[in-house]
């Protein structure tokens, strides 16, 4: 092992949902994205040797925590990314702190990861519920949608989304005229949509995710909601959800995302490389882009430190270095572990405007990073002093 002394071994674990409700935004795509990042970083040139492993947490916090523990204790994994499910991400974050490794979550929504449950070993990439509330909520009110009716999935995530968005609506001079709690999960939203229609609100906010969102949008189309003049605002929607709905059903839906494959030449180039390795040629979602981006940044930090031994030190280094990658542009990681970058308000194209299976969004506006995320001092993160 001649040059071993000069080489640092790095092992990255992609711990996501490969079989459950979030497998389309996570799954194999996250592994592909991570591998592309390693390819682009050219680790040999920096004295690193990188290995990638992956596993399925099945959206179960105890499975996720157990895999994380085993990876850290027995398999010499240095950093875990993906995560995706909020409850699992929180569990992985705790284990990571205990073992002093690194966890960069991409897909989970809970803003608690950079709030009361923040740790020196965790970074939250891509988005969180506060950013979505600010993005879709704030932007829609400013565009004239000042009366809202919420369809809220009756569990913590849905309620948090409604609460955060209502705060933003009120701050911008809008009014919430009503809301209804839908049992989680539900497949039939007809009665709730009827109530929303009856309320006369200009915007119907969908405080739900995944299949609930898809079903509510599909059925809203059936009841002629958008023809009746009401706008649908999806508070947590991914490009994969819109793809499965199709533009005919989802047209006019307004949503906020930090990444879209067709945004610029660089995102397009990455997306083509990504699609070639995916079954069905799927384009990357924001979560996949996040994995690419955070793996790249992590490797840069490790290359400078020349070691992976101290997770907290690595995270501190990642916070000290500003981020710059082809997918999210320039950004920064704050003291509470929140990554800051711009987000975009999108509207789903009409079928006539769409020239391809994945040609789904048109950009309405850019929301600057420093405005869309929760301010540093409002998070109750113990790492933030003063």
């Amino acid at each position, binding site marked *: 092992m001649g040059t071993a002394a000069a080489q640092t071994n790095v092992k990255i674990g992609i711990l996501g949902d490969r079989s459950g409700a979030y497998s389309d935004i996570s799954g194999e795509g996250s592994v592909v994205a991570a591998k592309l990042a390693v390819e682009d970083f050219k680790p040999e040139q920096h004295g690193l040797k990188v290995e990638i492993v992956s596993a399925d947490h099945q959206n179960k916090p105890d499975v996720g925590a157990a895999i994380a523990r085993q990876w850290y204790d027995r398999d010499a994994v240095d950093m875990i990314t993906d995560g995706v499910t909020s409850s699992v991400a929180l569990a992985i974050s705790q284990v990571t702190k205990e073992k002093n490794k690194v966890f960069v979550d991409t897909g989970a929504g809970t803003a608690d990861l950079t709030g009361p449950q923040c740790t020196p070993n965790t970074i939250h990439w891509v988005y969180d519920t506060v950013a979505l509330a600010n993005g879709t909520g704030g932007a829609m009110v400013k565009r004239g949608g000042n009366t809202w009716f919420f369809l809220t999935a009756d569990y913590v995530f849905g309620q948090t989304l409604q609460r955060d968005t209502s705060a933003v609506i009120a701050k911008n001079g809008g009014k919430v005229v009503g809301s209804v709690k839908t*049992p989680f999960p539900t497949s039939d939203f007809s009665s709730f949509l009827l109530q929303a229609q009856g309320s006369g609100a200009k915007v119907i906010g969908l405080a739900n995710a995944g299949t609930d969102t898809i079903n509510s949008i599909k059925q809203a189309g059936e009841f002629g909601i958008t023809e009746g003049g009401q706008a649908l605002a999806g508070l947590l929607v991914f490009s994969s959800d819109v793809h499965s709905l199709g533009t005919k059903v989802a047209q006019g839906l307004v949503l906020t995302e930090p990444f879209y494959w067709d945004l610029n030449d660089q995102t397009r180039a990455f997306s083509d490389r990504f699609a070639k390795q995916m079954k069905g040629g799927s384009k990357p979602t924001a979560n996949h882009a996040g994995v690419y981006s955070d793996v790249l940044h992590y490797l840069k930090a490790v290359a400078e430190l020349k070691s992976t031994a101290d997770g907290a030190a690595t995270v501190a280094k990642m916070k000290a270095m500003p981020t710059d990658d082809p997918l999210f542009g320039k950004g920064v990681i704050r003291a509470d572990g929140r990554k800051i970058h711009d987000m975009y308000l999108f509207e789903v194209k009409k079928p006539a405007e769409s020239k391809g299976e994945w040609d789904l969004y048109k950009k309405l506006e850019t929301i600057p990073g420093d405005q869309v995320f929760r301010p540093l001092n409002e998070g109750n993160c113990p790492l933030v002093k003063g």
Partner: protein
Amino acid sequence: MTTIFGVPTQALFGQLLLGLINGSFYAILSLGLAIIFGLLNIINFAHGALYMMGAFVAWMLLTYFGLGYWWALGLAPLVVGAFGIVLERVLIARLYKLDHLYGLLLTFGLALIIQGLFRNQYGVSGLPYAIPAELSGGQRLPFMFLPNYRAWVVVASLTVCIATWLVIEKTKLGAYLRAATENPTLVQAFGVNVPLFLTLTYGFGVALAGFAGVLAAPIYSVNPNMGADIIIVVFAVVVIGGMGSIIGSVITGFALGLVEGLTKVFYPEASATVIFVIMVLVLLVKPAGLFGRTA
């Protein structure tokens, strides 16, 4: 605007109508389950997965063969039924002499396999399937906007349920079926091919599930988990209605759809559990179900 318990009557009627529409799905699915249990003594846990297959077959017919909704209504139940017949011959028939809880375990395993395979192949976000043009749009009723497609669902499911009930209760074929399950040895002694009847019954029961799947495809997300979500509720419906009673499950299906609809108006958080609460109450008071035959 008049109100009942604080809810405008207009909204109330709208919700009741929607509840009836949901009830149609429960009715067809529980009809299939009740037939299979009543006549075969098998608790078919795979029913939800086969319902999902019906929706997927409809999507496949459209995507790979360009055959639209009306073709799917006829073909998808046949495909699912044929698959069911294969399952019955190869696997399920071996369990007839055993405690029927083994049937439950076997079909539970089958459901896991079928759903897992579809998940692997198609992901979980769901596939697009549109309402056929002839049925899109709706009627502006005084108390709500009623999508034409939803009205069609009620009509279709009522027709199928009544037709099935007529066949089983009023025709000679139905009589043979009922006799074969009461006393298979005797009926076989008369020269009737009992195993064939059982196979066809299972096939028919799951074909009904497939039919419900096609009805669901345009309005619910076509994804591999769509069956898992609905199967437990349908079980509750069948238990409440009476596990051998065909007419019982149909009436209960519609009735429970109505109850669920009402709950969604007055106390939406409980609409998921109300059916289970009713099930426990019914089981304590009248264990064979509302329309069941033996205690």
